[in-house]
């Protein structure tokens, strides 16, 4: 190898080193810039229309896929759904009656819950898109949403809380996110315990074996308003243990959810 070749190789190596350092500095600069709140807001502003379009396309196909189904299947499904609607209507009538009675009793005792301000929100991103068990919803600081506000479904099923608020969007952490801790009331005696999220709407809680609890029992959150937090799916214990391991699931299927409500704490 002559001097010119060696010199040339050296220059290539030096240029490569310089561009490599430039790339590393650029990445660090980018990370620092996007750690600032307003630039994150920009990221969510870019994402918001993309997620809306994606949801529109997805729901279009989901709503029209049944056109390809056979007539017999559709008739069968229709009959089954009619039967289910009739049963649900009866249960709903009873539920409305009991809710009203509950509200009236609370009013008599001066503890009304009907002045709770709920804000309806469309879900832009669900956990199938986000690996972290988070939701992104289309309401933000402009709508009065605040960090820590609780998120419910159908007005009585708690699913998570607001973690970050941007101008037009907010990030919701589901209580079922892995490692997330939440206080719940279990059993007939409403014993308060800390449940741990396991992802996908599942929770785990350890309770003493003396507490009578069965599969299918409801678990509630400590609150003045009636709510459902979970339904017991499985109970397991060893004969030598003094505690039982209760696995329960949120009754809401997040994958099928389109709308949620935010309980506004900031009532302007």
């Amino acid at each position, binding site marked *: 190898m002559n001097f010119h070749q060696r010199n040339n190789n050296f220059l290539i190596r030096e240029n490569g080193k310089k561009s490599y350092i430039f790339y590393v500095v650029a*990445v660090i600069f980018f990370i620092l810039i*996007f750690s600032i709140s307003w630039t994150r807001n920009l*990221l969510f502003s870019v994402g918001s229309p993309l997620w809306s379009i994606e949801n529109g396309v997805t729901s279009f196909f989901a709503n029209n896929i049944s056109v390809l189904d056979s007539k017999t299947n559709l008739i069968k499904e229709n009959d089954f759904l009619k039967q289910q609607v009739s049963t649900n209507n009866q249960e709903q009538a009873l539920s409305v009656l009991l809710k009203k009675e509950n509200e009236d009793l609370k009013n008599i005792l001066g503890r009304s819950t009907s002045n709770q301000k709920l804000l309806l929100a469309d879900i832009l991103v669900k956990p199938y*898109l*986000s690996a972290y068990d988070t939701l992104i919803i289309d309401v933000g600081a402009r709508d009065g949403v605040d960090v820590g506000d609780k998120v419910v479904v159908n007005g009585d099923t708690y699913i998570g809380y607001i973690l970050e608020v941007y101008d037009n969007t907010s990030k919701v*952490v589901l209580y079922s996110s892995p490692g997330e801790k939440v206080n719940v009331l279990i059993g007939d005696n409403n014993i308060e315990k800390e449940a741990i999220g396991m992802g996908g709407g599942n929770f785990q809680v350890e309770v003493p074996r003396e507490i009578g609890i069965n599969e299918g029992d409801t678990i509630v959150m400590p609150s003045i308003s009636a709510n459902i937090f979970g339904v017991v799916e499985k109970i397991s214990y060893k004969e030598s243990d003094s505690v039982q391991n209760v696995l329960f699931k949120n009754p809401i299927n997040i994958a099928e959810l389109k709308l949620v409500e935010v309980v506004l704490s900031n009532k302007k």
Partner: protein
Amino acid sequence: MLSKKKVYRIIADIVLILSVFLLPSGVTIILIFASVLFFNNFIESIIFSFILDMLYGNGRIFGYHFAYFFTTISIIFYLISFKIKKMVRLS
């Protein structure tokens, strides 16, 4: 005039940024890793992973407070990709 490899790289960048917003995080991270192996010095992978963490992260992973899970695994993969490439001679 851009070389063929640079054009592919720009296309990969566009696909990845769209996948960050529109595809499940698991799929995006697989695409990012594939790009790291396919292209030379694909340092953008760290930026895409960082955006994933910013958009969907809840500041916690496996119960521990840590907000940059995908960024960390991307940095690790980016660093070991040099060794992998040397071993399998992909580029």
